[in-house]
């Protein structure tokens, strides 16, 4: 006890003061280090920044080439699913799968990494969004014989070879009055925070 209660030496007092003075510096640094991961995922975990794609143009996104080839209302494809005042809007995107994953092993492809959580949506002039409708079995839109026509999520799991040209077809339930003006959007895991907005013809 006698040793403990001895007054601190000059060296100890100096270091104690230094430690105290570094606290205002270290605490914000620690907070920033802990928060950086949250900020990273805030930026890379959601689609925030739009990239416009002019009508008929092809955009490189997620290692592949995307073109909007069609956007038509087809309420007759599944009338039972269409609520009153709504219509079924069908968007067709033509995709040429990139060859970036040629060098990679099967199951470890950029195709799967970059196309993860593939989301096609539509957005209107006021920024209101609609995501793809869950229609279930719809042979009128996805004929069994045409294997190259499927939803984006379905294609992303299909291990398509490089340079394959696919049609991503998604259907949306949107109010009839905004159907002529909505524009399709495309968001992929590997490209966030960027997403594509396609201009209509």
């Amino acid at each position: 006890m006698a040793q403990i209660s001895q007054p601190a030496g000059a060296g100890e007092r100096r270091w104690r003061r230094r430690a105290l003075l570094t606290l205002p510096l270290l605490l914000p640094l620690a907070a920033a280090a802990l928060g950086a991961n949250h900020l990273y995922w805030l930026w890379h975990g959601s689609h925030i920044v739009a990239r416009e794609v002019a009508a008929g143009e092809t955009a490189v996104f997620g290692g592949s080439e995307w073109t909007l080839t069609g956007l038509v209302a087809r309420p007759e494809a599944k009338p039972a699913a269409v609520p009153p005042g709504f219509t079924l809007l069908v968007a067709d995107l033509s995709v040429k799968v990139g060859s970036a994953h040629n060098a990679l092993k099967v199951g470890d492809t950029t195709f799967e990494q970059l196309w993860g959580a593939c989301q096609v949506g539509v957005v209107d002039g006021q920024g209101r969004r609609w995501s793809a409708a869950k229609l279930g079995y719809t042979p009128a839109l996805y004929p069994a014989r045409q294997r190259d026509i499927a939803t984006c999520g379905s294609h992303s799991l299909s291990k398509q070879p490089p340079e394959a040209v696919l049609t991503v077809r998604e259907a949306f339930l949107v109010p009839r009055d905004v159907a002529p003006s909505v524009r399709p959007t495309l968001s992929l895991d590997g490209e966030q925070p960027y997403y594509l907005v396609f201009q209509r013809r």
Partner: protein
Amino acid sequence: MRVLMGVVVLGVAALLCYGLQASKPRPVDLARTVPVAGRQGETVRGRFLAGRVDKVEFARNLKVPFDREARTLTTDGLWVVVTLELEAMRQPVVLYRRTWNGPSGLTFHESDRAPAGLPTGFMVGQASRGRLVFEIRPEAASGASLHLSRDWISRFDSELRIDLDAIPRDPAGGPDVVDTLDLSLGGDA
């Protein structure tokens, strides 16, 4: 003397920590969904969702459709049927947390005995009307509020808190409880 000073400093620090813990909001309160308060009968607008509670009904027994016939559900407490209308405003919205919050803070989740009468997914441009059924304790009937949110912890989202101040009342001032409420007819939902 030094030892005594140490004890005093330690005591003050402990008091300060306790005060912080008791008086300050927890991190989860700071980061959680933002409550948006409203009242029964008015349209309450959150960030992504607008909702309006039209009617609250209390019953001792509930008649529900079950496999083409009606089945009566009894309870030791009370059945509450809340009729409401919801619409997504900006983007598709899902709503998993729909709770009845009593005046004492008791929280009741949707009953899993009665069939769900409100979808979990809502889209822009289509108002969905439906019923939520809760099985509550009688003392939680008056002065309650309905909380609606995706999962109460989503950042940058809001939680609708609708005060249910226009519930049906009996002459004594308590909640007006009917004997049997029939949901098998479809009602106005």
